[in-house]
């Protein structure tokens, strides 16, 4: 029941919000709804949650072999938690932004959250597809209505890209449906399929492209920097913090366990793509002058590492991915908050026009530096634990012959991340104060609060990551065992 409520609360909250006209009321309502969702998510994932509460099954479109079934397990638990934690932070951090037609804005935000929670918890392929689109459509409206100058064209590119890929995924799911022993879209039936290797490859690409576009990994990433740049910052936070995890999630839940042999035989290709993406995106990030684009490219690099680790298929690597999905979400939202604050005060995001902010806004500088360290994954920050486990996972992988090469190349990402992140800090916060930054003031209470929560999460999970590991531990074993059995058959 909790899992159903987790989906229904933001959905209904969002629909109600369409009727709200006043700015304050709409914001307050959205914040309230997001806190209720957060409470539900914590309850559902904690010991207090029962197994009955974590699963829900309802009748829906039985004639098509589909049912309305949701479930909270290790994987969906951690991602739902991320979606639930991120929303209050986002809403608090952007509290001072004003929007035209605020009721609609927050309604679409909440509907997106409902869609994403649906994607993470659905255990029925058709339902999963429904939620996948339900998360996309409100996001499309959010970005094209409240975004920057080039928003219409850019968001449209994003939409068409994702939609085209997702209909291919639909074919893949439909094809799998006809291979299930009991003609059902249920996840369990999908896991029971044993396809011949040649068919697995076709299905693998049909499914994987949808997730690769969403993550995005090289060469499917071209929509991403533009969209991040042009979207309103609150929407960018949702996109980069939570929505990209839908891609990683999709691979873990719907690709590798369903077509393990194809994931094995195409693993090297995907890992190469990911690693090219890591280096390519990091190099471009170094060149960027725009803060938003810099962070966008840095996000491609981080996600690329997760994708590569997924296909290395080692236990410690996957544990790292699970943690990093949560941590990356928190960290990148922290970075966006800083960008939002700078842009609102200075009216620019250009590195070349900023400088000397540390003298004017010391609190902001301290908080940003911690978030930035997490972005480079220094020890004692949350990202270190996750990334270390991922590198370890790639290095010890037995399913690829090039594990050492891949690991070394992937590790370059840390050095490159240090280059662009420290460069950013230097240009924004240090150096001489110029005309623009001379009048800067420090951040307000609500912004301190939001950033403070982010920093707290970074430090807590950097020093004591065990709770996150516990949440996902059992789950990883189950999936990987299934995949390993398939590899033995192929070999």
């Amino acid at each position, binding site marked *: 029941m909790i899992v159903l409520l987790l989906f229904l609360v933001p959905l209904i909250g969002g629909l109600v919000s369409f009727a709200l006209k006043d700015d304050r009321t709409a914001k307050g309502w959205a914040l309230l709804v997001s806190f209720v969702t957060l409470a539900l998510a914590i309850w559902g994932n904690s010991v207090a949650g029962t197994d009955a509460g974590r699963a829900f099954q309802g009748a829906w479109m039985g004639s098509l072999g589909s049912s309305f079934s949701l479930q909270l397990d290790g994987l969906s638990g951690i991602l739902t938690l991320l979606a639930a934690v991120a929303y209050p932070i986002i809403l608090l951090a952007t509290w001072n932004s004003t929007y035209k037609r605020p009721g609609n804005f927050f309604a679409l935000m909440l509907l997106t959250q409902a869609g994403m929670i649906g994607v993470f918890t659905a255990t029925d392929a058709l339902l999963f597809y429904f939620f996948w*689109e339900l998360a996309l459509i409100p996001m499309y409206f959010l970005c094209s209505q409240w975004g920057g100058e080039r928003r219409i064209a850019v968001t449209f590119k994003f939409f068409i890209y994702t939609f085209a890929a997702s209909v291919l995924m639909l074919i893949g799911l*439909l094809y799998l449906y006809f291979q299930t022993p009991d003609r059902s879209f249920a996840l369990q039936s999908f896991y029971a399929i044993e396809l011949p290797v040649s068919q697995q490859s*076709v299905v693998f690409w049909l499914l994987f492209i949808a997730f690769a576009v969403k993550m995005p990994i090289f060469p499917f990433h071209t929509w991403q920097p533009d969209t991040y740049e042009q979207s309103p910052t609150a929407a960018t936070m949702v996109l980069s913090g939570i929505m990209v995890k839908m891609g990683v999630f999709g691979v873990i839940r719907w690709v590798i366990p369903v077509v393990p042999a194809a994931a094995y035989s195409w693993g090297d290709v995907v890992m190469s793509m990911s690693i090219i993406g890591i280096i390519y995106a990091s190099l471009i990030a170094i060149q960027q002058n725009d803060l938003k684009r810099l962070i966008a490219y840095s996000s491609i690099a981080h996600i690329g590492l997760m994708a590569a680790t997924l296909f290395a298929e080692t236990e410690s690597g996957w544990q790292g991915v699970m943690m990093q999905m949560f941590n990356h979400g928190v960290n990148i939202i922290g970075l966006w908050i800083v960008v939002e604050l700078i842009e609102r005060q200075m009216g620019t995001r250009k590195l070349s026009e900023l400088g000397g902010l540390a003298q004017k806004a010391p609190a902001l500088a301290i908080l940003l530096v911690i978030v930035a360290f997490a972005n480079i994954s220094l020890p004692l920050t949350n990202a270190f634990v996750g990334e270390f486990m991922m590198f370890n996972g790639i290095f010890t992988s037995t399913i690829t012959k090039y594990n050492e090469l891949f690991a070394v190349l992937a590790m370059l990402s840390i050095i490159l991340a240090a280059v662009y992140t420290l460069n950013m800090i230097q240009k924004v916060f240090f150096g001489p104060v110029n005309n623009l930054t001379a009048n800067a003031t420090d951040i307000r209470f609500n912004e301190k609060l939001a950033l403070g929560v982010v920093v707290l999460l970074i430090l807590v999970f950097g020093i004591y990551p065990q709770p996150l590991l516990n949440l996902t531990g059992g789950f990883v074993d189950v999936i990987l065992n299934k995949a390993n059995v398939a590899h033995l058959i192929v070999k």
Partner: protein
Amino acid sequence: MNALIFSALSGVAMMFAGIWLRTNNSIRSLAILLSLVNIVVTFLELRGVHIVQVNTAGMLAFDSFALLFILIAQVSTLVFFLLSSRDMEKVGRNYPDYFALIFFILAGVAISAAFQSLLLLFLGIEIMSIPLYILAGADKRNLKSNEASLKYFLMGSFSTGLMLMGIALLYGATGTFNLQGYVYDLANIPVLLIAGLMLLLFAMSFKVSAAPFHFWTPDVYDGSPSVFTSYMATVVKAAAFIAFMRLFAESFGAIKTEWKVLVGIITAATLFIGNITAVFQQSVKRMLAYSSIAQAGFMMMAIYALNSDAKEGLLLYAAAYSLATIGIFAVLVKMKDQTFDGFNGFARQQPLVAATLVIFLLSLAGIPLTAGFLSKFMMLRATIVEGNIWLVVFAVLMAAVSVYYYFRLIQAMYFRESNQTLALDITPGFRYTLVGVAAVTIILGVFPNVLTYWLYF
């Protein structure tokens, strides 16, 4: 059978209504009343209550498939009357006659859905087409309307000629007009029969505007008065598809291998031409004309597959597509500037109407939670069962293309600002009907069983 009799009688009643009823309001009310009566009669027949019993000597079979489609057509007609009947006044002076012609079209629809003999197929298609030729030319002083009417008539007659020739050849090969009467010796299929089948395939492709037989469609749809284009592109096209389906499922299903590849090619070509050409249109009306070709491509997949999924899916498709297109046209008719730019800033001025239009457009584009998605889904499902995954991949890529032109309208309405004030004649009744239709679109998209249930009970 009752559906056929009552719609013909309604047509006659409307013809004479002009003599006694003086005001347009009363004529309109009578038409709406008659279409409600028709719906009730068909529904009763679907539940097994026959008001009149007629022996059709096996030439018509009003099974649940036929009746369900007739019901869909009649409900669509009612929606069409509720939304657009006021705008029909502006077309010309023969107001009651337009209603009469539409009821005659419904009679044709009933025959086309239920025929069991090729002769009745011919009758049904013709009864459906001839009133349409008149409606296409209803705006007598407009040159484009005249052109549309003539073009439609010539092309229609040509394809009817093909159809008759095909029927004659089939008769020559088998000695019967009856759909159930074909017995095949699979090892030795007469050339005459194949030739007849091909001619029928081409003639039906003409009627449903499948490529490469689609050339008349954009000009006719564009030239005809918009109110009637709306009806032409929806109910009539869907009825032609139902006839197509019945013809091929019941008489040629056994020799599928002979024509399957050809239908596959027609399907792919229709999808390609409809979608790609629609991308380049500047006028919403012309875009909808090409979109109707594109949607026909999807419905062709049902003809390709011919299984039970295809049957269910085609009915759902007919309902989803008709309701959405009638809704969009109803608003389009009221617009002065019918280009995409004419819709700039629409959402600001008419938020509720804009929201319903979004639902219709999402449905046409096949986005989940709308009826359009499920009907496309059923088509894909039916085709995958037939084992042709490449046609399915091609179809969804084309569906992705279609998002481009449907969303252009959404962008114009929501994201582009404009200073023009749209003086639209929108009554509260119109608005509520639109909301109702949008609600049905979503309900069918979440619970398709509401509709398909009736196919089996």
